[in-house]
């Protein structure tokens, strides 16, 4: 039993909400988590690519902006135990993107500038559950929060919402990504507290 540090509570808010999954606490700021240097890809060089379909599909930044977009207001839950309520985004639904690609895959592996990857079952990113987001709080998404564009899958732990996303590959099998291959849960449902392998 470790020694209790008198008067130590951490930086956690006392506030609670029935919108908080187990083990989470609320934050008002937007913490930045970094596993590497922040990429700064010029928009002129940015593309979004879907591999693994009948034909590869790719969009430039301008083409991507021309796709129908949606406004999303949602709660987000980081596996490092902070949650943030009512975050406001704009982005392109994966339903919109996947309707443009002929495929019979069950999974995707997202890839990003900087080398990060994360895996998702398609049933968890379709029917209005996931977006490629490029605005946050009415402004272009800042690089430190994943701009120019990041995945947004708010019903799963936020490591699935890959920053600096550049596309994904459609696959028949669930291939573990950067964190899923070294301890973190293959799916990551915060309401089931699926943090680590075996949870």
């Amino acid at each position, binding site marked *: 039993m*470790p*020694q*209790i*540090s*008198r*008067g*130590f*509570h*951490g*930086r*956690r808010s006392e506030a609670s909400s029935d919108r908080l999954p187990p083990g989470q606490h609320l934050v008002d*700021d937007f913490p930045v988590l970094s596993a590497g240097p922040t990429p700064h890809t010029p928009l002129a060089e940015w593309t979004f690519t879907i591999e693994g379909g009948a034909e590869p599909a790719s969009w430039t930044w301008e083409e991507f902006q021309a796709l129908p977009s949606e406004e999303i207001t949602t709660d987000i839950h980081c596996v490092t135990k902070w949650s943030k309520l009512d975050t406001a985004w704009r982005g392109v639904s994966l339903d919109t993107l996947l309707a443009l690609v002929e495929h019979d895959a069950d999974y995707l592996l997202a890839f990003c500038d900087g080398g990060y990857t994360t895996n998702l079952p398609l049933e968890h990113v379709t029917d209005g559950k996931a977006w490629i987001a490029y605005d946050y709080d009415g402004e272009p998404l800042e690089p430190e929060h994943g701009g120019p564009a990041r995945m947004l899958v708010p019903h799963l732990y936020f490591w699935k919402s890959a920053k600096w996303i550049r596309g994904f590959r459609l696959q028949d099998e669930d291939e573990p990504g950067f964190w899923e291959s070294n301890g973190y849960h293959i799916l990551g449902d915060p309401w089931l507290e699926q943090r680590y392998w075996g949870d």
Partner: protein
Amino acid sequence: MTGALEETPRVRTLLLDAEGWPGHRPGQHLDVRLTAEDGYQAERSYSIASAPGEPLSITVERLEDGEVSPYLVDEAREGDGFEVRGPIGGYFVWEDDGRPVFLVGGGSGVVPLMAMIRSSPGSTPIRLLYSSRTLEDVIYREELDARAGHGLEVFHTLTREQPSGWTGYSRRIDNDLLREIAWPASDDPQVFVCGSTRFVDAAADGLVALGYDPLSIKTERFGATGG
């Protein structure tokens, strides 16, 4: 924790009595782990400020968005206990071999350098270049003044605000400043640089530009956020 010393409005030295402490070498750090009543834990690293053989102490700067440092600077008091792990580190450690020593510290990056100064027998020439924002932010100011002259030369630079009549430097560390103060590379000095990532990168790059062997420059970076 057996005592505390307020160094500046944001910085405090904590005296520790660590059971079974095996002793340390100048430049090493230790990890502090705090545990809340519900089991929540947070852990951070702090440089050891004391010389080997002196009562163990760490010097901690309060980071405004921090989790552990505000507790250590503002909340912890004599008689409180917390877990420490250490000593840690073998790279950023001074072994006195008689070669001149050049210490470059930014803000609380001076702490492990102070452990080196405090452990020096005085026979090895040491120069300290110490960058602070304002005079009020200078840690160990009186002790450095008192120790200067006995083999130790101290050069302050204040980057944000200088008192009237200030005779030290008044700018961020740059190559010209390093050239004025650093030992010539031909003297084969040992170099220790500690501070924020940006500070350490600037100082190390500047010294390499002056002809220092990169292998002679030991660097340690600490985060400006999260502590």
